[in-house]
């Protein structure tokens, strides 16, 4: 019997090592696995390299992990936001390394890792500072730049529902980086609102098949849903209004 479920977020992240490359799903706050990140902060691993689109918002989730000084380097496309004060302070103090990657190249580098691709030529970034020093090639009359995959030791992903085999469905635009990160990491840990019995997820609707997933942990229903139905009543950060 295959059972990838774990009892709680603490157990899910218990063996993440110092210095690990940790992929964290989410686009801003949408799809950010806050419960897993909180468990990682409590677990104490440090010297981490984080892969995310952003570099934290406000003081929770990824921003809290940065504030706890557990992150050596961040690979992202858009660190500077109106509420990225934690990252901004660390960066200005020279206490965190930044690798800035155009968003589509970031996504494709992650996808490539999960798909066993050793590198790819992309038109994005050609002629800009972000392609300087990289290998270029003209293919069919167009210039491309070589980009390499980004592998994760661990992926922390947020989704809506999963089963004990690790089949996963997401919700709306909170899907964002979840499927490609789950495939790109050696150990993929998915937090879901609810773990459902095997067979309950429609196979036609499964987005991340269980082969990519190592652990599934239920963290309870998000506040703007009741029994899976949207009820609203929250602000964009999910706080009651």
């Amino acid at each position: 019997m295959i059972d990838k479920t774990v009892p709680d977020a603490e157990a899910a992240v218990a063996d993440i090592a110092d210095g690990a490359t940790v992929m964290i799903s989410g686009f801003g706050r949408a799809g950010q696995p806050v419960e897993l990140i909180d468990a990682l902060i409590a677990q104490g691993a440090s010297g981490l390299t984080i892969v995310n689109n952003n570099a934290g918002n406000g003081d929770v989730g990824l921003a809290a992990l940065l504030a706890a000084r557990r992150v050596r380097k961040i690979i992202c496309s858009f660190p500077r936001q109106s509420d990225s004060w934690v990252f901004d302070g660390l960066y200005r103090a020279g206490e965190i390394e930044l690798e800035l990657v155009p968003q589509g190249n970031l996504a494709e580098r992650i996808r490539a890792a999960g798909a066993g691709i050793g590198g790819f030529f992309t038109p994005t970034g050609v002629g800009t500072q972000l392609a300087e020093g990289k290998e270029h090639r003209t293919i069919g009359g167009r210039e491309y730049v070589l980009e390499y995959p980004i592998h994760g030791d661990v992926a922390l992903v947020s989704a809506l529902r999963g089963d004990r085999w690790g089949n996963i469905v997401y919700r709306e635009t909170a899907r964002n980086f979840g499927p490609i990160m789950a495939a790109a990491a050696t150990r993929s840990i998915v937090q879901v609102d609810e773990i459902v019995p095997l067979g309950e997820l429609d196979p036609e609707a499964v987005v991340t098949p269980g082969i990519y997933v190592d652990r599934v942990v239920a963290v309870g229903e998000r506040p703007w849903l009741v029994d899976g139905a949207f009820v609203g009543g929250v602000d964009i950060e999910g706080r009651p209004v």
Partner: protein
Amino acid sequence: MTTRIDRRELAARIAADIPEGSYANLGIGAPTLVSDYLPADAEIVLHTENGMLGMGPAPETGRIDPDLVNAGKLPVTALPGAAYFHHADSFGMMRGGHLDVCVLGAFQVSERGDLANWSTGEPGAIPAVGGAMDLAIGAKQVFVMTDLLTKQGVSKLVSACTYPLTGVGCVTRVYTDHAVFDVTPGGFAVRELFGDNTVAELATLTGLALTDATGIPAAEGA
């Protein structure tokens, strides 16, 4: 004498050039205004690069869904016919040339269609690029929406960009508060004048040799 239209008028002007059936991406900031002027009865499918086609307007009060946001991380809605997808698919459809048009802001656009819109290169500034470079080279047509002049009165249309580039030779057309300019092999061509502007006055303002294309019908599909 009027030489400028306001931002909302400009958004309406751009919206008029996006035909029914288009798949379009409206960039963060002013370009987002264009969606307010797309005809309600025209099926134009909006793409948001965080992972949706068929994006609708902001939700009503009390109906904000934190899982449903646009590229600016603001709450939006999903229209009937919407589809969600992951980030690699979203940028694949952009890079793969499937989007008909995107509308972007700019710091500078050069005569050969180079775009600078992600960094002013200020020392000490925290760099952030997001999807700007992917959008610039991905869509079949790249429209820029911008004021012609900076607050200091300097032309944003230039012979060569001095700010760090976002994309090379990627801009199709520039919609400014003074006029609409096409990027052509011969440099900027004035497609349409707003208010009392003349091509000669715009040439003085920009310091560029401009072609007068105001009497020529718009290129097919533009």
